[in-house]
C-alpha cells in the first residue's frame, strides 16, 4: 500500500462562505441538483455532506485512511475504503455525473491514470489543487526554501504531495490530453482571483470533460 493520500489534506480556510470552505461553494455552484457524485479522497466527508445538503447530491466518497473512514461514517456520508492508485475498477463507465478530486491530485502518483479514470467513470470531473505558482510559493523558493503555506501546509520531509504543479502546468496537461476545461475558479484566502491567476491564486478549481469525441 502506498502512503495515505488525501489524509487531512484540506487546510483550514478563511471562514467567509456558507460551507466554511470557499472551494466547496465553487464546486456546489457547478453541481446540478440531485446529481450523483463520486468524491475521490473524500477526507472526513464534509464536501459530500455539504453537496447533499446544498444540492441534494447523492454519492460516495473514496478514502484509504482509517481515521477518515471513521470520520466520514460519523458525518453520515457514504464512504468506501479503497486505494485510488489502483483505479476505479469497481465503477461502471459513465455512471456518475461528477467525479471530484479535491486537494488530492498533487498527492496522487499516477496522475494520468487517475484523471483518465475520473473521465471514464464521470460525465464531468472536478479537481481542486494548490497552485505551486502562487507568488507566496515563488517567493519562498526565491529565498531558497520549499514553500509552506495554508494551501501547502507540509514541510518537504513530511508532505504527502508528490506532484506539485501550477495552473499553467495543469492547463497544458489538459491541452496535451484532449481534455476540455469547462470552468475555472481561482482563489486566494477565500477570495476570487481574476487577474494573474497563476501568480495571485493559491487554490485552483476546475471542471472539465473529455471534450467532443471524434
Amino acid at each position, binding site marked *: 500500500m502506498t502512503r495515505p493520500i488525501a489524509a487531512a489534506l484540506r487546510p483550514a480556510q478563511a471562514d467567509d462562505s456558507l460551507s466554511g470552505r470557499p472551494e466547496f461553494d465553487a464546486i456546489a455552484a457547478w453541481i446540478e441538483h440531485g446529481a450523483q457524485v463520486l468524491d475521490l479522497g473524500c477526507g472526513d466527508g464534509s464536501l459530500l455532506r455539504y453537496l447533499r445538503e446544498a444540492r441534494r447530491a447523492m454519492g460516495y466518497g473514496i478514502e484509504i485512511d482509517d481515521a477518515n*473512514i471513521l470520520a466520514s461514517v460519523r458525518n453520515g456520508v457514504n464512504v468506501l475504503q479503497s486505494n485510488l492508485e489502483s483505479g476505479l475498477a469497481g465503477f461502471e463507465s459513465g455512471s456518475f455525473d461528477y467525479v471530484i478530486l479535491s486537494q488530492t491530485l498533487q498527492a496522487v502518483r499516477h496522475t494520468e491514470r487517475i484523471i483518465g479514470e475520473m473521465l471514464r467513470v464521470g460525465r464531468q470531473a472536478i479537481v481542486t489543487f494548490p497552485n505551486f505558482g502562487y507568488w507566496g510559493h515563488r517567493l519562498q523558493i526565491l529565498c531558497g526554501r520549499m514553500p509552506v503555506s495554508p494551501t501547502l501546509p507540509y514541510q518537504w520531509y513530511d508532505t504527502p504531495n508528490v506532484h506539485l504543479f501550477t495552473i499553467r502546468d495543469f492547463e497544458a496537461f489538459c491541452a496535451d490530453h484532449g481534455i476540455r476545461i469547462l470552468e475555472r475558479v481561482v482563489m486566494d484566502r477565500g477570495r476570487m482571483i481574476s487577474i494573474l491567476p497563476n501568480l495571485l491564486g493559491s487554490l485552483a478549481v476546475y471542471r472539465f470533460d473529455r471534450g467532443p469525441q471524434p
Partner: protein
Amino acid sequence: MNAPESIGVVTARNAQFDRPVRLRSGAVIDRYELAYETYGRINEKRDNAVLVCHALNASHHVAGIYGGDPSSVGWWDNLVGPRKPVDTDRFFVVGVNNLGGCHGSTGPASINPGTGRPWGADFPVVTVEDWVQTQAQLADYLGIERFAVVMGGSLGAMQALQWTMSFPDRIRHALVIAAAPKLSAQNIAFNEVARQAIMTDPDFHGGDFYAHSVVPRRGLRLARMIGHITYLSDDAMAEKFGRALRDGALKFNFDVEFEIESYLRYQGDKFSDYFDANTYLRITKALDYFDPAADYGGDLTKALARAQAAFLVVSFTSDWRFSPARSREILKALVDNRLDVSYAEIDAPHGHDAFLMDDQRYHDLIRAYLDNVDIG
C-alpha cells in the same frame, strides 16, 4: 458517560409457530420453534429493533450470561451490551437460533411430530432464504414491523444481505461483515471435507445416530478442526502457536506434540460435546447454496435491485476464507444500485475470525454507524 458493561444475566425463550413453513427445497415443516433472546427494550415507535444473525456454530445467545454460569458468555458479548457498539440502552436486540439449529430451535435432533422420533436424516435441508423467512415470523411474533438493523458476520452477514432482498421494506440498515456473495469452489471444498468427515464416521448411522445413543464425535472433531484452520490466518496461527512444542522436545510418536495440534484437538473435542452433526451438515449446505445472483444470470446487481436498505460492509485484510475481494463484489452491486453504503477494510491479523474480535477500529466504526441510525 458510564463505561460499557455486560448486559448481565439473560434468559432464552422459545417462540412456537403453528403455521407451516414451505422451504426452498419444497419441503414443508408444519410447526416449529425458534429459540431467541432479547436485550434492551423496544421503544414506543417500535423502530429500534436489531436482529443479530448467527454464523456456523453460534446461536441466539449473543450477549450476557445465563444465571449461575459465569462462563456462558454470549458469542458477540464484546459488541452487544449497554453502551457497547451495539448499545442495548438504545436498541432492542434480538438473537435467534436458526431453524435446523441445535441450541433450542427445531432441528434434526428435535422430535418429528409425524413419527414421534428425532427427525435425524429426515430433517430437510435449510437455506439462508428459509432462515430469513422464519426470522421474519419471529419478528411478527415480537411485533416488529421493520428492523432498524439486521446484522451478522460470515454466514450471519449472508442472512443480513438476504433480508434486504427478501423483505426490502422490513429492514432499514444491513451490517454485512466478513461476507461473500456466494461461496467459491475452495469454500465449498472445505465444507465437503467437513461433511465427509461426519458422514463417514461409523457413529453417524446415516444421520439417525440418536436411535443408537451415539454421537459421530470423530467426524465432528475433524469438521471443526478443518473449519478452525480456515478461520485463522497463517500469520495469526504463526503468532499464536508457531512451531512451539507442548513438551519442549520431539517425541517421535503421534501424540500431541505441536501446540497447534493441541489447540485443534481441544477445539474439536469441545465442539463435538455440544454440536449436532446433522445441524452441521445442514448449515454447511446453507452456505454452499447461498447465491442470490443465481436467479439473475449471476448478476448480483440485478439481485440487489429490489433492496432499499442502507449498508455497512466490513471486511478484514487477513481473512482468506471470505477475503476483502468478496466484500467488494457485494459493494459493487450496492453502488451500481445507488444504495447508501459505506465500506471499510479493517487491517486485522486474525483472519476470518476477526469479526468476533474486540478490535478498536472495527468496533469504533460499528458504533459510529449505529449512532447515525435514526430511532424514536
